[in-house]
């Protein structure tokens, strides 16, 4: 029965591919809802009938929507994201400059948040019901039920206004050396870490508690193993799958957080680019950014599912 795992994984990847296709259709369809004629809006004052007709021809607006969807999809697949409506630059060029910044922010946050969240999740599960557990759990519920911008606002108030450790709103153009870079970087990373570690602690804690209820843990208790040994040697290896699943799922919360955090701290990343593009209604840029984010999101959720499949020993035999 060793064929079961590859089959399940291939099935999961196929679902991801279909999902991506449906998402791309939804994103394309949303852009078609723009009221009015795109060519007229772009030309503004200069919208003579001739100019509108020329632009429509140049933008291929007269062909049927389904054909334009196919062309757009083919373009995406080959890395041709189209031209920005606003400044006539290739979208790929606009995004590539910003993508590294966003990835750097995400990577730093991951490096900080994951170890801290795992440590807190496992220790709270070990001391379930203690004061420490209750304080952390209450904190998590508060973080989860408030908007991301409130966490950012409070972080600014605490670290910049009252403690005066960090600049209030980061300005990327005032960087002189590593010290400034760290100071500019600190606030967005702190905020994002709070947002994603709350989910991660909660899910890790639930996974470990679930494992601690298993019969083999009772067996370990009965044979007289110490609590540390029970958790580290017996519970954790069996909870690795759910925990890795929880980490991948929580990382997908980075996306929602990054949009707010880049806006509030003026961080030059892709999310800020996209929010700015919404105010200028630069649809090709918005579509490309949306597809990029959905792609990242899908990779993380698919990873979470694949890990869950791989970690299930019952499928391995």
């Amino acid at each position, binding site marked *: 029965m060793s064929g079961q795992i590859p089959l399940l994984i291939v099935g999961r990847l196929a679902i991801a591919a279909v*999902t991506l296709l449906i998402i791309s259709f939804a994103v394309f369809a*949303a852009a078609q809802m723009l*009221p009015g004629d795109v060519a007229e809006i772009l030309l503004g004052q200069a919208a003579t009938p001739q100019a509108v007709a020329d632009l429509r021809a140049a933008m291929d607006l007269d062909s049927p929507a389904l054909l334009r969807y196919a062309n757009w999809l083919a373009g995406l697949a080959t890395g041709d994201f189209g031209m920005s409506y606003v400044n006539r630059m290739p979208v790929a060029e606009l995004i590539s400059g910003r993508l590294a910044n966003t990835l750097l922010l995400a990577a730093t946050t991951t490096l900080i948040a994951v170890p801290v969240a795992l440590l807190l999740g496992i220790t709270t599960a070990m001391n379930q019901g203690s004061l420490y557990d209750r304080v952390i759990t209450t904190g998590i519920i508060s973080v989860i*039920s408030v908007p991301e911008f409130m966490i950012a606002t409070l972080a*600014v*108030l605490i670290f910049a*206004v009252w403690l005066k450790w960090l600049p209030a709103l980061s300005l990327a153009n005032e960087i002189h050396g590593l010290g400034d870079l760290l100071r500019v970087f600190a606030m967005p990373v702190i905020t994002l870490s709070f947002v994603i570690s709350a989910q991660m602690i909660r899910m890790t804690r639930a996974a470990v508690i679930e494992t601690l209820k298993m019969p083999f843990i009772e067996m370990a208790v009965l044979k007289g193993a110490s609590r540390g040994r029970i958790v580290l040697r017996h519970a954790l290896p069996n909870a690795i799958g759910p925990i890795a699943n929880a980490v991948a799922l929580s990382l997908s919360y980075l996306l929602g957080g990054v949009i*707010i955090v880049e806006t509030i701290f003026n961080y030059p990343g892709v999310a800020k680019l*996209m929010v700015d593009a919404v105010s200028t209604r630069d649809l090709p840029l*918005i579509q490309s950014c949306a597809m990029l984010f959905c792609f990242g999101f899908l990779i993380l959720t698919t990873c979470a599912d694949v890990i869950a499949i791989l970690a299930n020993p019952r499928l391995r035999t």
Partner: protein
Amino acid sequence: MTNQIRGTSRFGLRMNAVGIAALLIMLFWAIMALIGPMLAPHPPGDIIDFDYFGPISAELWLGSDYLGRDIFSRILLGARYTVGISLGAVCIACFSGVVLGMTAAAIGGWFDSALSRFLDALNSIPSKLFGLVVVAAVGSSIPVLVILLAVIYTPGAYRFARALSVNANAMDYIAVARARGERTLYIIVQEILPNITGPVLADLGLRFVFIVLLLSGLSFLGLGVQPPEADWGSLVRENLGGLPFAAPAVIAPCFAIASLTISVNLLIDNLPVRIRDRS
């Protein structure tokens, strides 16, 4: 939400203190959404303080905003937008989610699989991104926001209601009803619906919290409720300039959102088990 309130008074004796406190805060904001502007100490749109980002004082209970308007009055007015839009959206989302979910469970077969696959795909678009793309395309107005938020949260409500209905559908009384030759509509309305009502109402509360958070997030990005109208998210955005001075105008609307969302969460956590998870 009225259903929940009715439900808790019926089971009132078994609620603990935290649940009652949460319920009272929710009731407070519900009343403010209805009559808040009438109780406001100052007209929300009038500039009454010559100083901007003024501090808390006897005259201005929560200070003044970036134009010198009374922020307390503006929060009372904002309750109407935040609570009203979210409530409208959550009702539409849960209604369509539950109807579709029960139908899918009762009919089953390809209808069920196709609908589930499609809604799962919609669900895998991050909600803020979905909001950004739609607002970019059609612009932002209150009806658009209500429908947008409802569409974003329908797949989740569907998934939840379908899972419950599939469980209920496996019960003996459903098999009996089918054997009696009842029609699908009868089975959905008379047999499945009464057995999933409690958990669905709890789910409605949770989804309400998500919607309040998303609406505030969109408004904070300047894509939600548009000036001159302002919900709590827009109030934070408007007054963000006061952050370096720790102005109460930035912090107060944040706490208004937090008090609403945390109390809804706490109320659901402290609901009597009988309503919360009967399945």
